[in-house]
């Protein structure tokens, strides 16, 4: 048992934190969010230089062969800074490609930061059921053609290629598609996503199946949990700071016991969430046992969903009117925590899955 980060993990996290503190402050982020592209190519290039885009990919393609556990601290830092770059979508799609014959031809560009990806799986009406997709793939001569619609594809507007799931006679399989123009959307938490319409769209087969989609989604869920913990940390830290500085009736409002106890409960919620994020990241790296992995991820998602709701709502409430203002970062953290609570399945979904395992 050892909760310490090793030297490499610590160095990476430190440099990520230093970079974000310097170049990804609230004002810098505001400009990135407002930009046409909705992300910063410079920031992405820096991520690549730091090795983030290669970290979880096999060494044979130029990656570092790391796992989710190596990214816990990085994702926490992303959550604190509310990073909007399409890191998670790129990792998800890359994970699918890494298991395919195309790994060698595609992954190096991803790892070097020259290519961003998105993972197009979810469709309208499926809610969080990963098996509910109706996009189809059929073979026409040598080519595969996809037909269907994908929704809320995170990172699609800035992606260069898309990994798309579709039904074949073998069940669900994955395909690589060149990104054409898509209708970009801004999500509630200020990221970019797109609706995707596939009309006899040419695609390269990647293989894979529903189990792979589940594995990829669990991997991303665990990382999203760590990210949520970072966002909670910011929400707690900034609320604590506010309680100490904001005065009413001549004293800091942090002297009011009712607010103190609520602050303590936020703090405990954050620590409990952090424990579950650690657990989930550790279990997704132990790929030999899919059931254990799924159980840990669902458990973590339940806790993160519940506590993200609690911490986000309290952080705004304890800020009073200021918490409602777009000018304070805490309101943006509220948005991120609201979205992340439901990302890859809300508490209800994971309660059902947890109990069934």
């Amino acid at each position, binding site marked *: 048992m050892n909760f310490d980060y090793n030297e490499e993990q610590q160095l990476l996290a430190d440099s990520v934190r230093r970079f974000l503190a310097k170049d990804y402050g609230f004002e810098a982020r505001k400009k990135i969010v407002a930009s046409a592209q909705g992300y910063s190519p410079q920031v992405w290039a820096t991520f690549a230089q730091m090795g983030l885009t290669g970290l979880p990919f096999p060494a044979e393609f130029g990656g570092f062969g790391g796992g989710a556990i190596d990214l816990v601290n990085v994702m926490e830092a992303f959550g604190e800074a509310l990073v909007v770059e399409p890191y998670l979508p790129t990792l998800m799609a890359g994970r699918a490609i890494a298991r395919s014959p195309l790994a060698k031809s595609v992954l190096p560009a991803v790892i070097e930061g020259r290519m961003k990806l998105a993972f197009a799986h*979810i*469709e*309208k*009406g*499926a*809610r*969080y059921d990963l098996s509910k997709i109706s996009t189809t793939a059929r073979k026409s001569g040598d080519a595969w053609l996809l037909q269907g619609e994908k*929704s*809320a594809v995170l990172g699609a507007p800035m992606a260069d290629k898309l990994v798309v799931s579709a039904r074949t006679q073998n069940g669900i399989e994955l395909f690589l598609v060149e990104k054409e123009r898509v209708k970009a*959307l801004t999500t*509630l938490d200020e990221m970019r*996503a797109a*609706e995707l319409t596939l009309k006899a769209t040419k695609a390269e087969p990647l293989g894979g199946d529903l189990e792979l989609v589940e594995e990829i989604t669990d991997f991303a869920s665990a990382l999203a949990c760590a990210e949520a913990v970072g966002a909670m940390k910011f929400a707690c830290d900034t609320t604590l700071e506010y309680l100490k500085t904001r*005065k*009413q*009736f*001549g004293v800091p409002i942090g002297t009011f016991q*009712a*607010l103190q106890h609520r602050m303590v409960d936020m703090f405990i919620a954050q620590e409990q969430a952090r424990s579950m994020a650690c657990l989930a990241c550790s279990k997704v790296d132990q790929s030999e046992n899919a059931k254990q992995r799924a159980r840990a991820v669902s458990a973590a998602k339940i806790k993160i969903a519940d506590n993200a709701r609690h911490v986000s*709502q309290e952080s*705004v*409430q304890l800020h*009073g*009117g200021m*918490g*409602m*203002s*777009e*000018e304070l970062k805490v*309101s943006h953290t*509220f*948005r991120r925590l*609201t979205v992340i609570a*439901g990302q890859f399945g*809300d508490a*209800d979904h994971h*309660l059902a899955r947890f109990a069934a395992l």
Partner: protein
Amino acid sequence: MDLNYSAEEAAFRDEVRAWLSASLPLDLRQKVSSYAHLSKDDLMRWHRILAEKGWVAPAWPKEWGGTGWNLVQRYIFEEELGYAGAPPLIPFGLAMCAPVLLRFGTEAQKQRFLPRIYRGEDFWCQGYSEPGSGSDLASLKTKAVRQKDFYVVNGQKIWTTLAHYADWIFCLVRTDPNTGRRQEGISFLLMDMKAPGVTLRPLVLMDGAHEVNEVFFDDVKVPVENRVHEEGQGWTVAKYLLGYERMNTGRIGESKRQLAKLKEYSSSLKNDLRFRDRLSRLEVELMALEITNLRFLDRMRRTGQPPGADVSMLKIKGTEIQQMLTELMMQATDPAASDDFSVAVRKKYLSMRKTTIYAGSNEIQRNIIAKMTLGL
């Protein structure tokens, strides 16, 4: 004990409901129902329709346009407005400035302002909160210095709702900075928003909407005749307004409409036990709050006493219900959907977080009950 409306009360409700059904323009109803932005024109159009009918200010004395309805009728009317999905009646003129003028204003002030408020010719806003004085109203710093027939006002207000629509603002200002108690030396002024020296800065909220503002006063001249009540008696005026009887703090009618809409909208989840249980508990809480509200109303009717600290309970539970309604509505949207309504619902969830903060945060309401009702 009879929890049902009497025949007369039911008939009145039916009359109001029938009139609303015929008179509330469909486009306004739809805007409200789809959480769309309501423009100043939308708000004032509905105000004028009610004014024409003679129903825009039921609580006013009959001579100024009031309807003469009793408490229960006024409650029914307000709840029916909410239930029908009518645009809100902005309270700053009708339910805040007017009662103050009726109680403390000079005859000239009444003659000048009340008819214009009634007809919707002046749009009012409220200048209470200041940076650093949220719940602690008496710590306000905006200064008004008397110079002959004018006050010269300097300072800043914050969270001023719809100030960007407003023609007038009523303000608490400090006319004497050297008093012992902070509640002394405050006066109540009516200020023209178009006067030189008044500037606005929008405060955009979490959902991206522009609803509240900062209002800055730089050497704004306010004629002494625009002061209401005595100089230094502003706190008395403010306290009167806080205690002013409000019928619909719980916003039951509005929440009933939202609940019906939520049930319809979430029909695809009707076999989702978890969602349904949250919905049931919410419905029960609302049922309870409606009876609680009626019980308080009944007591007011019997005793003739203002509602007192009980209203705080309606504020707390009412806003919790309103927030939960939008949260469940958000849960009911398809997470993969990005149509206008789904997006509006999610933004509404953000926006509704304000309800437990504004109009005396729910923490302040709990302080009030602890002190006034429980004697702690």
